């Protein structure tokens, strides 16, 4: 199966054929153990098949043999950049099973943690993205310098930098230590300075413009049909953000805008993420202003044993819609536990975006999708 309307040009006296290249699974541009089987005519991509599953550990089967609470640390390991939002999605689904009211302070802290996670994800994604373009190191290290400060905040709150395991059904595991909110505010206040510099460094750079504008276009119709979510969907011109649509948690109390693109090319996907960071900072400022004192844990049952029910909880993760589908059967273990991984489903259109582009652009397009293999393979 090659691209539609593709014709291999025959030349007299010369034998021509397609070149098959297996990019990965250890290619540095594939963000993990991911493989693209590419068919090339010269430098042009005429067919592409994503191959993955190298990290498959059947997370869902593991979860069916464990209690609800014991699954929480495993959700950290799905998308290991964003453990806080993974926790939230799972907690949100489980809280529908048994109706627990989450206290006010916990809701605010959840929003703060989720938005900090979004900053961590987008800032390192942008770093990796320009790394794929050939800007080795420098922008990535600037991004990691800022990420470090946020990871330190996570460490103080939860005890771990990446595998936080901080959310619980009905609240949070523990309150943040004294002085944490002031530190968080300092980080939030200093972040725009970094963003200004970062924008100056990258957004008008002629090399980035020529490598990303018009590359990997994704039409609005295809994006919706293929279930693309998150910044990638918004770059294609659909302003669909679950924080606005579902208004889960307390997102309806915050004022923020949803940035979206027009062209749906790599540059739009890059810019949407840059702009989203500004909006996250807006939410963080409002949340830090208004956070009340109080309890951080609701009245959760001592033994989590929900009645038979089926629920689907979803949140706007930094990579897209992260959903958890749980079926309870009255035992302490979930009967069925399903993760709807955003980066897995966003890969559906990789082939469509790469066809007819150069092989070097395939790397850029993959970088702009923002995949984490822990989540793709589960």
């Amino acid at each position, binding site marked *: *199966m090659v691209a539609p309307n593709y014709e291999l040009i025959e030349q007299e006296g010369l034998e021509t054929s397609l070149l098959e290249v297996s990019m990965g699974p250890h290619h540095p541009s594939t963000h993990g153990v991911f493989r693209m089987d590419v068919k090339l005519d010269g430098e042009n991509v005429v067919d592409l098949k994503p191959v*993955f*599953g190298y990290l*498959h550990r*059947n997370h*869902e*089967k593991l979860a069916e043999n464990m209690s609800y609470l014991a699954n929480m640390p495993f959700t950290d390991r799905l998308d290991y950049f964003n453990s806080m939002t993974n926790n939230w999605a799972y907690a949100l689904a489980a809280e529908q099973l048994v109706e627990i009211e989450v206290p006010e302070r916990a809701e605010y802290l959840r929003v703060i943690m989720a938005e900090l996670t979004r900053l961590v994800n987008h800032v390192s994604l942008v770093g990796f993205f320009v790394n794929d373009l050939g800007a080795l190191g420098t922008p990535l290290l600037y991004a990691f310098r800022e990420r470090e400060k946020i990871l330190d905040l996570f460490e103080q709150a939860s005890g771990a930098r990446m595998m936080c395991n901080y959310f619980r059904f009905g609240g949070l595991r523990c309150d943040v230590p004294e002085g944490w909110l002031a530190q968080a505010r300092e980080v939030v206040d200093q972040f725009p300075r970094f963003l200004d510099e970062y924008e100056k460094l990258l957004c008008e750079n002629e090399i980035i413009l020529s490598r990303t504008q018009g590359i990997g276009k994704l039409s609005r119709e*295809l994006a*919706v*049909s*293929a*279930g*693309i979510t998150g910044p990638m969907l918004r770059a294609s011109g*659909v302003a*669909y953000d679950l924080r606005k*649509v*579902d*208004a889960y948690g307390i997102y309806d109390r915050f004022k923020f805008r949803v940035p979206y693109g027009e062209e749906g090319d790599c540059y739009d996907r890059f810019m949407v993420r840059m702009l989203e960071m500004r909006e996250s900072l807006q939410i963080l400022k409002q949340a830090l202003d208004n956070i009340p004192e109080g309890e951080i844990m609701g009245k959760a049952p001592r033994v989590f044993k929900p009645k*038979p*029910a*089926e629920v*689907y909880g*979803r949140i706007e993760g930094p990579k897209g*819609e992260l*959903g958890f*589908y749980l*079926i309870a059967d009255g035992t*302490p273990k979930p*009967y*069925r536990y*399903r993760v*709807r991984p955003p980066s*897995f*489903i966003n*890969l*559906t*259109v990789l082939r469509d975006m790469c066809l007819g582009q150069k092989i070097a652009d395939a790397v850029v397009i993959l970088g702009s999708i923002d995949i984490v293999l822990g989540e793709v*393979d*589960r």
Partner: protein
Amino acid sequence: MSELSHEPLLKEFPDAHWDEAACAVIAPEGEARVMAEWLLEQGVDYCSNVTGVDYLESEVKEKITNDAGEEETVTRTEPGRIDVVYHLYSMKNQTGPLVIKQRTGRENSQAESLTPVWRSCELQEREVFDLFGVDFKGHPDQRRILMWDEFEEHPMRKDYTEPFDYEWEPTPHDEILEKHKKGKVIV
């Protein structure tokens, strides 16, 4: 987000029935594709999540009223089945979710592919094929996706047992696992 009502769907497809416990519409056999196309026309343009659920054969006790008008408890055997679950939303109208299910047996499991209607089913139906062994009719590219091509079984089925020598090497952890396996600890 406002609810996406299932009533018009049931009106259009009288054979479909509403499962109150699961809050889902069970699609009649052979009509899932038509149903999906009709839903797409109604503006349900976004299929968020596709997955399978495996139910083993089980015995259920239920109360019925017999001819004499007395209540009695009858045990009947519920045959095993696999559900393919679709979570649908409308991005245009910002409504949802609507859950539809396709039911199939555990042997020769077959379902209709909805990939031609919603592209987002493509990889997810491949995953259901891989992990549950449901054959999707009309899927453009049905191959294993997470397990390797030579793998034969379907690991997400409830009766799947892993091979005894599967990635095994002796560690001090063995005695811990042994104890857990004996059921001494797990409740």
